[in-house]
């Protein structure tokens, strides 16, 4: 399923005026799919992000690490439209200025976000959770009067396979284990046919086996999607990371492979020093 084709479907009808250029294929000709440039955010004088620069390539798997308060969650808030920065620019491809869009537009356009605490709709079944997340016309009248089409239903089965929850399809999401909820939420992101996945602490509270499966899942998603993982668990980061970015006090401290970053004296000072 081609996410761009999908975007075009609703891009022309759903949000005719304010909608960005989702109608055109995303322009990633220069490499990066996501540009975060000189972004600063402050809350009551505290600089959560300070001239942050970050470029994510198409299909890349990027891990972002950093001590508490480094600005990881704020960075996700800025990319997904929850927080508007004081300065800087955030572009999706070459054309789309994410700062002009609201959360639901960004989500429809192909940036999916998983929260730190697993957030699924507990009152609904696994199937219904995925159904709600399905890419398509998400306006009130359309969801009121129409069900899913065959293609969308096939996509649900496909995603259930990917996240390994086919056996629990009719179960209430509230009854799933912690790990299963995390996977379900990742599955919900996949239903949106996203180009970029933002995943906040996916293995927090998981057992060793669950962590392993999550690592496999995320690595298999890279390539098809750009995946940005924020994580504290260093062993986990090492097991999946190709490229690591270290945030500290709202800006990038170091960037590179895990080995390079780990031997960087600045990083050592931040993590071990003082």
């Amino acid at each position: 399923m081609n996410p761009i084709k999908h975007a075009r479907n609703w891009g022309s009808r759903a949000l005719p005026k304010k909608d960005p250029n989702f109608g055109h294929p995303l322009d990633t000709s220069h490499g990066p799919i996501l540009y975060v440039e000189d972004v600063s955010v402050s809350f009551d004088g505290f600089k959560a992000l300070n001239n942050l620069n970050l470029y994510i390539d198409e299909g890349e798997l990027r891990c972002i690490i950093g001590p508490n308060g480094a600005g990881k969650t704020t960075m996700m808030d800025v990319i997904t439209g929850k927080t508007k920065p004081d300065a800087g620019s955030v572009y999706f491809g070459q054309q789309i200025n994410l700062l002009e869009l609201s959360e639901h537009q960004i989500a429809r356009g192909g940036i999916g976000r998983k929260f730190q605490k697993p957030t699924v709709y507990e009152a609904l079944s696994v199937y219904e959770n995925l159904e709600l997340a399905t890419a398509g016309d998400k306006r009130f009248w359309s969801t009121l009067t129409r069900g899913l089409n065959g293609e969308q239903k096939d996509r649900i089965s496909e995603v259930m396979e990917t996240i390994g929850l086919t056996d629990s399809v009719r179960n209430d999401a509230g009854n799933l284990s912690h790990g299963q909820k995390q996977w379900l939420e990742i599955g919900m992101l996949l239903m949106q046919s996203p180009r970029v996945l933002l995943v906040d602490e996916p293995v927090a509270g998981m057992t060793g086996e669950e962590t392993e499966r999550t690592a496999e899942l995320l690595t298999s998603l890279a390539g098809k999607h750009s995946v940005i993982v924020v994580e504290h668990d260093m062993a986990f980061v090492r097991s999946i990371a190709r490229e690591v970015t270290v945030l500290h006090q709202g800006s990038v401290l170091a960037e590179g492979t895990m080995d390079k970053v780990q031997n960087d004296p600045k990083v050592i000072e931040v993590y071990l020093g003082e």
Partner: protein
Amino acid sequence: MLTQRLLTSDKGGMIVLAILALTCILVPILNLAVPESSPFHVSTFTVTLLGKFLCYALLALALDLIWGYAGILSLGHGAFFALGGYAMGMYLMRQIGDRGKYGDPLLPDFMVFLNWKDLPWYWQGFDMFWFTAIMIVLIPGILAWVFGWLAFRSRVTGVYFAIITQALTYALMLAFFRNEMGFGGNNGLTDFKDILGFSITADSTRIGLFLASGIALMLAYLACRYIVTSRAGRVIVSIRDAETRTRFSGYKVESYKLWLFVFSAVLAGIAGALYVPQVGIINPGEFSPLNSIELVVWVATGGRGTLYGAIVGAFSVNYGKTVFTSFYPEAWLFPLGLLFVLVTLVLPQGLVGLLGKIKKNRAGDNSDKQTTDKADTKEGA
């Protein structure tokens, strides 16, 4: 297929609908065809009382749709009910014509009394029923749209939303109390003579209004079921349970809340419009914040988030109120308050939840077996 979707797995709703349908068939017969001397005769007083309850039930249904499913607590839903009522009241006033005390062919009595010479512009058109019918839907709908647009766009939720809806209905009450508003001041609109050419006090008209209320309630119930069983209904429940997640799933949460709120307000307006000819008066007291709070108690007592629970709640609390106030007219607020506290503490699922619990306990002996059976089938599937 649609009926299947609306009614399967809604046993309580089916029972309530069946009772409503039966009432709509039996009451007219027992009122009109059975002689007054018979013990089976239903008095016109009872018909009107039941008709009133049907309107309350429709109002409760409207509130349950937004409170029970979207988690939006409106403490001002009585305002939409009253606005629908005023629209109908204006039509009924214009129907009086020159039969008023002052005999003015155009102006209602209270305007003559205030020495007004012309009919205000906003009273134009209300002599026609079709225009009134449109206004009954439009006025509450537009107010809800404007109010909801401002509130939801600014992401006002929870207790803040409840408070501003309360302020809305209070402000409207104060405004309608003013004589200069042109809605009869604190006396409101009354002394109605006829509706669509039928005398408003005639038994047959009462039955007609009763039937209209019953049918409106049943249709509204099905419409609400249609919404909550659709995909949009599941989005609405998701907004209630995890609003941010829903937003990041690409849904424009504000517009879902807004349309649901508008639909709910329209239902409330229709309820008010059916209510006014049956009670024969509409005054600013209907905007009183207390009315809206009572409404919340009906829904909570019946069981929120079930739709039919709201109907059960509206009937049972109002029946209790009718019985109680015939003994101690002044003290109704005390049992009402007590009821609210009890429901909150003991019956969070309301009467409907209590029934469900009793049923479960009775089936308790078999429950162990059932759970294992269920687990088996799940594994099998």
